[in-house]
C-alpha cells in the first residue's frame, strides 16, 4: 500500500528542489509568505508555552513541528472558505485570519476566544475527536446547494481516523460529492499512542480508497508540497469533483499539551532525524536566492511585536462577564433559566 501512496515532496531536507515540475509555480512572494507565516505562528506558539509556564495562560496544546502543514494548507484557502480546526490547529486559523489575541484568550479559558473575525468562517476548535468532519461536509454541502465555489477544510490528527465520525464525515462527503478537503496531520502520536497502535494500515491516505475519493500522502514538513497539494484538492472541490483526503506526515516536536511529558511515552531519539520545517524552507531560500537577511530580521522583529501586542491585548481584555454564563444558550432565554440567572446575580449582590 505504501508504494501506492508515495510521500510527495517538493523540497528535501537539505532544501533542494526535488520535484522540478513545480519550479515555475514557485515565486518569491509565495515563498516569503510561507516563511513569514511560519515564523509568526512559531513565535506565537513558543510565547504561549512561556505564558503557560509563568501561570499567565491555561493548559496549552503546542503545534511546534507542524508549522509547514498548518501554514501551507491555510494559505491555500480562499477567504470565503470554511475552516474546521481542532485544538492544535491555531497555527492554521491564525494564518487564515483569526486574531492572535483571541486565540490566547481561548487558551485562557475565555469563550471570546472562539469568536472568529466577522466574515471569517472559522469554527470553534473541535475538542472531541473527529466530530468536526461531518460539520465540514455539511457546510460544504450548503455551498454546493447554493452553487458557489467555496469549500471547507477539516483539520484532524492521526488518532481521529479511529473514530466513527471520521468514517461518517468522509462517507457523507463522498456520497454527496461535496467540496471539502479532509486535511490530516499525521504527527505520529495521539497523545501517547503511536500510529502503529492506532491502525493496521500502512498509510492514512489509503483510507480514501474506501470512499472513492482521491487520497494523497505528502511530506507535511515541506510547506511547498502542502501548499500546492492543498490548492489542488481545493481546485478539485471547487470544480464540483468532490472531496479529497490529504495525509500530511509531520512531527509534533513537543508535548500533547503543557500538561504532559512526552519523554514518558516517546523515545527521545525518535524525532531527532526530522529536519525542522522552518529550517527546510530556510535552506531552500538560501539555496535558491530568496534569502534576504534584512527582510528576515525585519519580519522577526515585526512578528515579535505582533505577538507581544496580542499578549497585551489578551491581558487587558475586559474581565469575563458573568452574564455570558447564561446569555448564549438560547436566542431567547427560557423563564426557568432567566430565574436561575436572576437568583444567582442577586446572590452575588449579597456577597
Amino acid at each position, binding site marked *: 500500500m505504501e508504494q501506492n501512496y508515495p510521500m510527495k515532496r517538493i523540497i528535501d531536507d537539505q532544501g533542494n528542489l526535488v520535484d522540478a515540475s513545480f519550479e515555475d509555480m514557485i515565486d518569491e512572494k509565495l515563498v516569503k509568505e510561507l516563511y513569514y507565516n511560519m515564523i509568526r505562528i512559531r513565535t506565537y506558539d513558543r510565547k504561549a508555552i512561556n505564558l503557560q509556564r509563568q501561570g499567565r495562560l491555561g493548559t496549552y496544546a503546542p503545534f511546534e513541528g507542524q508549522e509547514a502543514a498548518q501554514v501551507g494548507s491555510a494559505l491555500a484557502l480562499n477567504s470565503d472558505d470554511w475552516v474546521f480546526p481542532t485544538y492544535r490547529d491555531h497555527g492554521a486559523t491564525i494564518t487564515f485570519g483569526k486574531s492572535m489575541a483571541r486565540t490566547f484568550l481561548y487558551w485562557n479559558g475565555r469563550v471570546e476566544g472562539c*469568536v472568529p473575525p466577522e466574515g471569517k468562517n472559522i469554527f470553534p476548535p473541535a475538542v472531541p475527536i473527529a466530530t468536526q468532519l461531518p460539520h465540514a461536509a455539511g457546510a460544504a454541502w450548503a455551498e454546493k446547494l447554493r452553487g458557489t465555489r467555496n469549500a471547507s477544510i477539516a483539520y484532524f490528527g492521526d488518532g481521529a481516523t479511529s473514530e466513527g465520525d471520521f468514517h*461518517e464525515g468522509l462517507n457523507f462527503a463522498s456520497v454527496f460529492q461535496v467540496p471539502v478537503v479532509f486535511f490530516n496531520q499525521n504527527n505520529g502520536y495521539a497523545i501517547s499512542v503511536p500510529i502503529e497502535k492506532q491502525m493496521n494500515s500502512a498509510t492514512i491516505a489509503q483510507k480514501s480508497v474506501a470512499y472513492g475519493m482521491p487520497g494523497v500522502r505528502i511530506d507535511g514538513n515541506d510547506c511547498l508540497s502542502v501548499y500546492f497539494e492543498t490548492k489542488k484538492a481545493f481546485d478539485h472541490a471547487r470544480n464540483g469533483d468532490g472531496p479529497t483526503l490529504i495525509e500530511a506526515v509531520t512531527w509534533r516536536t513537543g508535548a500533547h499539551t503543557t500538561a504532559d511529558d512526552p519523554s514518558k511515552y516517546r523515545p527521545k531519539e525518535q524525532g531527532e532525524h526530522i529536519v525542522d520545517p522552518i529550517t527546510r524552507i530556510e535552506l531552500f531560500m538560501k539555496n535558491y536566492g530568496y534569502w534576504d537577511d534584512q527582510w528576515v530580521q525585519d519580519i522577526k522583529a515585526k512578528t515579535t511585536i505582533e505577538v507581544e501586542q496580542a499578549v497585551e491585548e489578551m491581558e487587558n481584555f475586559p474581565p469575563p462577564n458573568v452574564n455570558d454564563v447564561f446569555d448564549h*444558550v438560547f436566542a431567547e432565554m427560557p*423563564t426557568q433559566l432567566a430565574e436561575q440567572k436572576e437568583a444567582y446575580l442577586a446572590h452575588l449582590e449579597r456577597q
Partner: protein
Amino acid sequence: MTQLKESDQQNGTTKQMTMIQAINDGMRLMLEEDDRTIILGEDIGKNGGVFRATEGLQEKFGVERVVDTPLSEAGIIGTSIGLAVNGFRPIAEIQFLGFIYPAYEQIMTHVSRLRMRSMSHFTVPMVIRAPYGAGIRAPEIHSDSTEILFTHMPGIKVVCPSNPYDAKGLLIAAMEDPDPVLVLETMKNYRSKREEVPVGKYTVEIGKGEIVREGTDVTLIAWGAMVSIAEKAAEQAEKKGISCEIIDLRTLYPIDRDIIAQSVQKTTRAVIIHEAHNSGGLGNDLVSIINDTSFLYLRAPIERVTGFDVPVPFFTLEEHYLPTPARVVEGIEKVVHF
C-alpha cells in the same frame, strides 16, 4: 383543542388528518415556503420514511431537498450542523429514538452547545424528529422513551405532541425556532385517531402546555402517548366520583410551569404519568416544579406512575412496562384518599 376551533373558524379550511399526515403536511408546507428547508434521513426519500412521514415529499421537492442519507446517525446530525450554520434549516429524521445514540455526541457537544461556544456567532436552527415510545409491538430497541437525555441537555428544546393538531403546529414552530428543537413523536398516536387540522400554516407555541380536561380533585400531567392513558384513567375515576384535570405538557423543555402551578393550586393533588423509566425521569422535575410553586397547596404527596427502571421489555411483555389506566387510577385514588 381550543386553538383548533378558533383557527377553524378563522380560515375555514381544515382537513381530517392523522398525526403522521399532519407532520407530513407541516413539512410540505415549510418546504414550499422556505427554500432553506432541507430534510435528511434514512429511507425518507423514495420510501417516504418507515412511518411515511415524508411520503411524497421527495417526488414533489426533489432529491436535493428531501435526501436519502447513508445509514449514519452521527453523519446525519453532524452534516445537518454544517448545513444549519451555513444558512439552511435542516430537519433531520432519526428513524427511531432508540437509534439516536450514535448521534448523541453530536447533539450534546455541538448542536446544543455551538451557540454558547461561539457567543451566538454560529447558531444551529435545526429540527430533529424522532419517533419514540412503546406499545406498538415493535422489535426490541425501537421503543425507548429517553426524553430525559435531551431535556437535561442545555441548549436544545424538546417537544412531544400527542395529537395531529399539536404535531403540525409544534413542528412548524420548531422549524421557525432560532435554536435546535427535538420533536419526539409518539408512534402509538401516529395513526390512532384523525381530527380536523388546518391545511394552512399555524404554530403551537413551544413552552406551553394545554389543559385537555378540566377537573377539580387532582391534576394528571402527561405527554405523548400517556395523554390518552390519562384520559382513560380520568373517565374511570369520574365513575368513582373523582374529578381529574389533565395537562398535556406538549413541551418537555422548557416546561410550562405556570400551567402546572395554576392547576395544582386549584386541585391540590397531582399524579404524573410518563412511560420513561422512573429514576431520573422527567417526573422528578415536575415534582420539583410543584414543590417550588405550590407546596403549601398540596393535600397529598405527589404520585408518579411511570415505566420501571428496566430496559423496555420485548413486546410480548411491554404492556407490563407501560403505565395503564388501571395503574393511573390507583395513583389517583392514592392521592385523593391520602
